[in-house]
């Protein structure tokens, strides 16, 4: 189909292919804001996760229900959303057109990560969705019901290995709250954290762990196929479409939902807050939103206004209490599940080893130099360039991508030339850098919708 490539010129088909690629990228680009007040929804997680999906579904539904509305999604991932939270609380203060997606995981993340900001620093708007948690065992497991598993768990807590998502996440919280309901200290739980529900699914299917806990959706396929047995769900009552009893039916007075909500920045007037709440309430009532809920398997947990504020406080108190009791029990080593390797074993050993080996190596390399010594000019070039690289992060948020990249480009070119100061040369370097950085800026921010400062 394509002519054989030549070394001198680009075949015309090739150019067309590239053009097509560029066109495709432009097609993909989210429509850049034109309306007067574009709404920004911050997803404090990487693309693909639950918070990101919530933000993107909101974007789609708002675009469909409010003609001409412009909604942007911004991902600020990190540390259970607390990085996004602290940036949101600080940089969006008083902005009535900004929302942050949040949820149960952030409540515990704030505490375990010692975040300087909590959800109390934001303005609550509304709870939107939730996902029911499910407790499963492999089809071959001897445990046929939740009471049977609870009995075994009470008899020997360590022998029941619970698999689930990350430490401090919803799955972890559920198992520990369950333990407390059964009269066991939360710290006696043998909880095995996996990177996400997917890895936990493999572990429970392979019989590596006794039981696993996750959002119902993650296990739904296997439950339907009969490979996993759903022992209980964490909803307050039986849920249509799910053939499993609740924890309460098994005598465990507990319900927990992996809820997701949106909050606004601090410093809003009551009128601004109410307007935003009204907008989100309209969105949540739309047919498009209901359809999206069904499609993603999310429960409709819409709750706004004072009720939502009260709910948020109650959840915070519940999670905080649990984590405090856990932290307190950590101080008594006997209460902790026995571990010959603790989280601090490896870093401690590594730091000592690294220091020792580096010392020996440093002494060795002083006595017999492995590389040719550097010239004074060489050092100067390296130091100039190093300094430029260290200045870049400072300049980046203030002066923007184009200016800081031009600086680095020119410094790099100057250092590489290594012939001292030549104004004419440096000027062309700056021009080249400017052109290159400008081109990249256009491709990324306009073409791909990846905003650069």
């Amino acid at each position, binding site marked *: 189909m*394509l002519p054989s490539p030549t*070394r001198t010129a680009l075949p015309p088909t090739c150019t067309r292919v590239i053009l*097509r690629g560029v066109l*495709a*990228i432009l*097609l*993909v680009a*989210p429509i850049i804001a034109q309306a007067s007040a574009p709404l920004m929804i911050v997803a404090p997680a*990487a*693309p*693909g996760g639950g918070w990101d999906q919530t933000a*993107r579904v909101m974007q*789609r539904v708002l675009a469909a229900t409010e003609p001409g509305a412009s909604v942007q999604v911004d991902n600020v991932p*990190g*540390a259970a959303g*607390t*990085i996004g939270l602290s940036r949101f609380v600080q940089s969006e203060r008083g902005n009535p057109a900004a929302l942050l997606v949040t949820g149960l995981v952030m409540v515990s993340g704030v505490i375990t990560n010692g975040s300087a900001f909590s959800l109390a620093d934001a303005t609550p708007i509304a709870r939107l969705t939730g996902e029911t948690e499910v407790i499963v065992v492999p089809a071959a497991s001897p445990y046929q019901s939740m009471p049977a598993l609870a009995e075994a768990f009470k008899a020997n807590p360590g022998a029941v290995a619970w698999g689930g998502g990350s*430490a401090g996440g919803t799955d972890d919280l559920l198992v520990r709250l369950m333990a407390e309901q059964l009269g066991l200290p939360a710290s006696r739980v043998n909880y095995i*954290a996996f990177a996400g529900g997917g*890895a936990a*699914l*493999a572990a429970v*299917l*392979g019989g590596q762990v006794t039981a696993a806990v996750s959002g119902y959706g993650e296990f739904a*396929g*296997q439950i339907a196929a009969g490979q996993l047995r759903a022992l209980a769900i964490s909803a307050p009552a039986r849920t249509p479409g799910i053939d499993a009893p609740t924890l309460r039916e098994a005598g465990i007075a507990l319900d927990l939902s992996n809820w997701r909500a949106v909050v606004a920045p601090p410093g809003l007037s009551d009128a601004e807050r109410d307007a935003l709440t009204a907008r989100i309430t309209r969105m949540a009532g739309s047919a498009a939103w209901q359809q999206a809920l069904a*499609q*993603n*398997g999310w429960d409709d947990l819409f709750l706004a206004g004072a009720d939502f504020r009260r709910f948020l406080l109650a959840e915070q108190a519940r999670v905080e209490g649990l984590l405090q009791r856990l932290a307190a029990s950590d101080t008594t080593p006997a209460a902790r*599940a*026995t*571990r*010959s*390797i603790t*989280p601090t074993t490896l*870093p401690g050993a*590594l730091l000592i080893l*690294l220091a020792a*080996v580096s010392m020996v*190596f440093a002494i060795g*390399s002083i006595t017999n130099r492995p*590389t040719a010594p*550097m*010239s004074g000019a*060489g050092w100067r*070039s390296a130091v100039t360039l190093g300094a430029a690289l260290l200045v*870049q*992060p400072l300049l*980046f948020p203030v002066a923007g991508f184009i200016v800081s*990249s031009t600086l680095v*480009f020119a410094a*790099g*070119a100057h250092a*590489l*030339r*290594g012939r001292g100061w030549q104004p004419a040369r440096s000027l062309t370097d700056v021009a080249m*850098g400017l052109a*290159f950085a400008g081109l990249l800026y256009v491709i*990324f921010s306009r073409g791909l919708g*990846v905003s650069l400062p």
Partner: protein
Amino acid sequence: MSDLWQGFAVALEPLNLLWALAGVTLGTAVGVLPGIGPALTVALLLPVTYGLDPTAALIMFAGIYYGAMYGGSTTSILLNTPGESATIVTALDGHQMARNGRAGAALATAAVGSFVAGTLATLALSLTAPIMVRLALAFGSAEYFALMAVAFVTVTTVLGGSRLGGWVSLLLGLTLGCVGIDALSGEARLTFGIPYLLDGIDPVIVAIGLFAIGETLWVASRGPELEEILPVKGSLWMTADEWARSWRPWLRGTAIGFPLGALPAGGAELPTLLSYAVEKRLARRPEEFGHGAIEGVAGPEAANNASAAGTLVPLLTLGLPTSATAAVLLAAFQQFGLQPGPLLFDHEPRLVWGVIASLYVGNLMLLVLNLPLVGLWVKLLSIPRPWLYGGILVVASLGAYSVHRSAGDLVLLAAIGIIGFGLRVVGAPVAPVMIGLILGPAAEQHLRRALSISQDDWSVFVTRPLSATLLAVAAVMLLWGLSRREPTATIKG
């Protein structure tokens, strides 16, 4: 088999062919651009494809995934700047080949190797998915830890000429791997109260810092007398000798990549690293590794693509995402009301087999698309050296920034770059830092998880047959390695 033919009928529908083409083209583009991976692209596209036919959308997404695997090697080879973790290993020898005037051959062996591996692995996916799944589920934490032990023993050959320097680098990498929230306990380690460090240190940023920034500083410090980068020496394409040296690594890379990709612990880092180490062990001239050995590009690139196909095994059969892209693909399935898992093949045979068949088609498209691009890419290297390195610095910072869009990443990038420069000054190899950073956290997590499940009983590692076998393999390899260790003199000037 008849299912697969039916799948081809779906994939070869003109409209689906067009979607596949759009996908692979877009995939190649995002693979080449730094910091924009397939996961981000598919996530951005999800809302746009809402009204599309699910089969067409998924064919396009799969094309993006495969395309990014092809495109990702380009910046690694030309600019020493890996755009994603899967192509870190490619930079080791790929960029050295480019400096020696063999960029064309490096890109070609990557493209052809990706085609060979992608096609064979897709074949393996169509034929062996059910068996692979059973094998993958047999892997518990004990087995993973034993596998990591094998990996560690294998890759210590990559430590390079200066053994002590290699250990310094390895330990540095292992220590960097500990930074952040401990996955098992949720405790913060070595973060010194800095919130930025809570999520740990991204291997991609470390690779860019060590390779691209560290190298640029080093070149600058050596002054202008250092040898020029040769755009093309000899033929632009692979020579007969290079073909002869490439085909075995392609096949071995496929054999390593597919099963490891199918394991639920996932990721392309381990297969590419293992393939590199295996090629170095088996090479007739292991001393060429680190200085532009084509086997060191051919093997890992094949392993990378094969593991991408492997990732689809648990995704399609269990609904189990083992990489960031697979997780977004899962979300895509769910958006269309499809539940990947054991019942998907029964409920949606047309869709599943259509997507699988489109992978064959996509691979062929990618080969045709990428080979002509080689000539264009190589031209980049004829840019004057100061501007080329200036450009590398800008692309490197952009790549690091767009991973998480945080200026903190730029601080880390500069710091790692300076460390990389320091390591070069004292004559220590930089590759072991990456080994420590990639394998260390995985090995520790699996070890502690296994002990946690067994309630601190160390015997699990020898009582489980698969784990015991793997540990025995590691022990034999270690003894064999120690007995035939000859003094290597590979250090460069």
